[in-house]
């Protein structure tokens, strides 16, 4: 499973990203990430949910590729489900400055 995460917006507007591949991670770490992705149920969720009236909220794009399928969702800090929030918490720790290639 490949996950591409991009954080943007927030007051500072800084763009950070990471690209992870569970196939190349230690298996225990891969299991943690796969479980977070599974729990977030991204396939069943709307592709985009952004606050109408919020300003300077952090924005998150999560793209997951695996089992021949790909799913991309966009959220901000106010529209995250608890499960997606946990996944974002994990992905934020891996992200580094810059936009994805």
């Amino acid at each position, binding site marked *: 499973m490949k996950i591409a995460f991009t954080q943007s917006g927030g007051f500072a507007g800084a763009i950070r990203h990471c690209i992870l591949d569970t196939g190349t991670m230690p298996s225990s770490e891969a299991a943690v990430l796969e479980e977070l992705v599974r729990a977030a149920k991204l396939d069943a969720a709307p592709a985009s949910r952004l606050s109408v009236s919020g300003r300077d*909220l952090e924005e998150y794009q999560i793209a997951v590729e695996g089992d021949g399928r790909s799913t991309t969702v966009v959220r901000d800090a106010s529209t995250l489900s608890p499960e997606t929030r946990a996944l974002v918490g994990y992905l934020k720790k891996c992200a580094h400055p810059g936009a994805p290639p």
Partner: protein
Amino acid sequence: MCERSPIQCIIPPYINEHLARSANPSTRARAIANLKAGAAMRAQRVMAQAMPSLMVSAAPTQKKTRQVFDARQTDQLPGVLVRSEGQAKVADKAVNEAFDHAGATYDFYDTLFSRNSLDGKGMTLVSSVHVAETDDSGQFVPMNNAFWNGEQMAYGDGDGVIFRAFTGSLDVVGHELTHGVESFTSNLEYRNQSGALNEHFADVFGVLVRQWKNGETAAKASWLVGAEVLVPAPTRRAIRDMENPGTAFVNDPDLGTDPQPAHMSKLFTGVFDRGGVHINSGIPNRAFALFAKALKGNAWDVAGRVWYQTMLQLTSTSQIADCARVSVQIAATPEFGAAAKKALKAAWKKVGIAV
């Protein structure tokens, strides 16, 4: 059965739905009443998100009214009320900063533009400090951000590595409150170019509040946004530089390099950040800084007044070129003097827009 406002109820809709089928007519009636009231409250919330003026309790005789809440390192807003209008300083520095900076922003709009709070009708200024966010294990961690949620301001304390408390910067507070002002005026749609203008006006008036409060002339003033919020490091001077977009931070280990363009030829057209609202704001930011400096004197006197009227005339779908056109029209009016229109056209030309 809950007989108070459904906002205070702890009975969830699915229990009321079950009770609405009860054999007992009195139980059915109360459950149905609760479901109707709950649905109305949810409908109002959806409407209020789309129409901010619905959320304002009309109090036309009310003047400066501030409330500061402590979210106590949680993400629940607003939190606990810790300081109200008329109350003295408290021990918590972030509370006092939120209170004082909201007051300065109110005074700026009132003194210069006769604007009574964000909605022009004395709307209470609500801030929450010590707002946190959850990490991957559900633990609360300090938030590296400040935001406006449509009704109030929220300030994080920062991680102490990259960011400090967001209440520490007057221009950050002014920026957030200006988003509120915009929701009652141009209401620029928060994406792509209109969103970049929304961000731009928030930066302009945030910085002007600071320059006005400190009595700084345009030539001597700082055009940096959020400098006080960053933990100092040689690779970063501020979050944004209005005069020199793209230079606020360079090869910074935490922030990277400032992505703001200084010219329309480098307009960001990607999807991130709602189409670059914090990125493309650099272009009109530079035009404003150049305009203000060309006029000499205080930036808020002429440039700020032109910009305030521009903000009021733009609409939700205005593009950067519309801002240029409207601002030049306004600058041409006699109240601003002959030099204003010329200086403004030159400033817009520098960033790639011919008016």
